[in-house]
């Protein structure tokens, strides 16, 4: 489980990147945080990973405070960045092997590596190829494979679908659904409203460091909310009028 409690981050230049954010992602749940560039999504992610020290508040992974015990907290989290680059001189399997061992797992069989690589949709002939020739989609798949091999309870995905082709996008969402079935708590930031609508159990809309609105899958389905319309309305109307924005976006869901 991921908990973010009253998290704020003000940078040295005075910019308030995250403002009193409260959020919980339960096991078996996918939470998608939507927001424009500069909304504070990545800063939130960096605070959760302990790379940025929050000005106030805290983040807990499986009950472990990231600020107080970052190394222990990171044992329970896997992270996939927007641009998964990895080590270009290594093959896919070598990269997977390194990160698996880094996660503390020992004695992993070759079959297990191949099984995971196949599961994320990587072609068999790519397993032993150096990463220098990999497309962005292939790297993204490998990033997910690394996250799977870590067997972490919480998975953080920073804009993971950007740059994926339609087929890759669908496969990626199927994979996320499988991970949800396995009980992983998945926290994902994205610009991709359509994929968020398809996969998310809850969607949060963030702007100027504030979580303006959170809508659940049930609400989206029951009110036939047009998520893209809602997103624009919420951003336009701001925090106080979020309910009005939901109402304005209901009944036109796609």
């Amino acid at each position, binding site marked *: 489980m991921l908990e973010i409690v009253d998290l704020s981050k003000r940078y040295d230049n005075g910019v308030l990147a995250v403002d009193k954010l409260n959020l919980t992602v339960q096991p078996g749940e996918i939470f998608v945080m939507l927001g424009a560039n500069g909304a504070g999504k990545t800063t939130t992610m960096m605070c959760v990973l302990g790379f940025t020290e929050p000005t106030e508040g805290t983040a807990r992974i499986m009950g472990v405070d990231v600020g107080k015990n970052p*190394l222990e907290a990171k044992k329970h989290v896997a*992270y996939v*960045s927007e641009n998964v680059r*990895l080590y*270009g001189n290594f093959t896919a399997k070598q990269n997977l092997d390194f990160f698996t061992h*880094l*996660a503390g797992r020992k004695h992993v069989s070759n079959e297990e590596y191949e099984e995971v690589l196949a599961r994320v949709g990587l072609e068999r002939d790519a397993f032993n190829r150096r990463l220098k020739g990999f497309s962005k989609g292939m790297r993204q798949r490998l990033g997910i494979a690394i996250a799977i091999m870590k067997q972490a309870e919480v998975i953080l995905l920073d804009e993971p679908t950007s740059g994926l082709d339609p087929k890759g996008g669908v496969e990626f969402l199927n994979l996320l659904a499988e991970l949800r079935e396995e009980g992983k708590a998945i926290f994902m930031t994205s610009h991709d409203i359509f994929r968020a609508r398809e996969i998310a159990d809850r969607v949060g809309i963030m702007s100027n460091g504030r979580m303006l609105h959170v809508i659940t899958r049930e609400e989206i389905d029951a009110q036939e909310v047009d998520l893209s319309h809602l997103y624009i309305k919420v951003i336009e109307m701001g925090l106080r009028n979020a309910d009005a924005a939901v109402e304005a976006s209901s009944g036109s869901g796609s």
Partner: protein
Amino acid sequence: MLSVLVKKEILNNILSFRFAVTFLMFFLLIGGSMVMMAANHDKQRRDYYNATSAYRERVDQMRDFNEFELFGMTSRREPNPLSIFAMGLEADMSRSVTNSEMQGLQVGGTPYANPLFALFSTPDVAYVVSIIVSLLAILFVFDAVSGEKEEETLKLVLSNSVPRDALLMSKCIGGLVCLCMSFLISLGVGLLIARVSMSLVLAPTQWLRIGGIVLVSLLYISAFLMLGLFISTCTQRSGTSLMISLLAWVVLVLGIPNLVPVVARQMMPLPSMARMEGEEEAIRNEEYDKARQKMSRDMSREQRSALYNEARRAVQTRMELLQSNYENRFMQQVSLAMVMSRVSPSACFTYASTAFAGTGVDAYTGFVRYVHLDFRRLFEQSLHDVREASRSARAGVGAVDVKRLPVFAPKEQTIQLSLKKSLIDIGLLCGYTTLFFLGAFIRFLRYDVK
């Protein structure tokens, strides 16, 4: 955890194009330098034996002392095999000394020496390590941290339960293992070729000295590796790291060691040769004038001679004092330059490696002292002995005994003394390595990985 990270660093380094280029450069430059310098030493050694035996044959054939005196007494120094590793001031320490009645003591040298050797540096192992290897070391790690940040692998690695100190340590160990192994393999192969093809013969103490040179080379490589790593932790972009690394290298390797002697000369100037000659002339005039003023017409010849001898002794004493003052000031200038230049790891490496090779500043000053004091005395004594032997023997039969001629062999520093002399530089190289590592460590603990 550390072993996983170190294994990855080593594998990542070995698989990189940068490592392939670095290894090739090490192999070609260090191995090539060893082979070339060994071949050069081989030739110098043959020349030494040929010239010595030709000289002895010639002296053997001489019929009387006059002929020997006219020909002069020449003694040659055996070339130093360790100059293969660190040439240092070996070329400035003459390999032959001649003494003749006509010209006195003359330190050898040929007017036909190739001027290009003076124009360009000798590519011995110390030179290759000092210039090329330091550059390759700094270029090997300049983006170890900033480059991983750009590639976003740093974020991914640190999203695991990885302590930052372990990650930095793995980068140090991985870089050191790869560079040091490349260096040792290149040196070993070069040494093997030199031993097999050029019959390079080394005494056990010389092997110890080579061990000392290898040790300071490894320390020097470590210092630059840590410097590169430190710079990498101070920057966010690999392009910036590269620029700063190159600047640091230019300042530390090319700037300081070349500029400091000039600065020291400005800070502690020596009187010019013209001024020295003027002072010598003034001393001579003053003392002889004093003697002349004391002389009177009624003095006997013996009294005049005594006054003249007294004046000559006074001149000699004052000249020696003048010379001694000059030498002291000269040595102070050299010491000042050495102290100041030790700001650069490159200078420390040069001092330590040449101290082990017996081609450094101490060896040079010892050599000059040996030639002008010990050997001159030995020479004069030998000339006297040969002259006496010649007089007592019947001319033409064994007038000059070759075995009685002095051997030109400046005293070699013991390995213990070389170690003692280079301890300060070894200490400083260790200090720089530690300092740069600590700098990198402190910077990396607070490094912004975002």
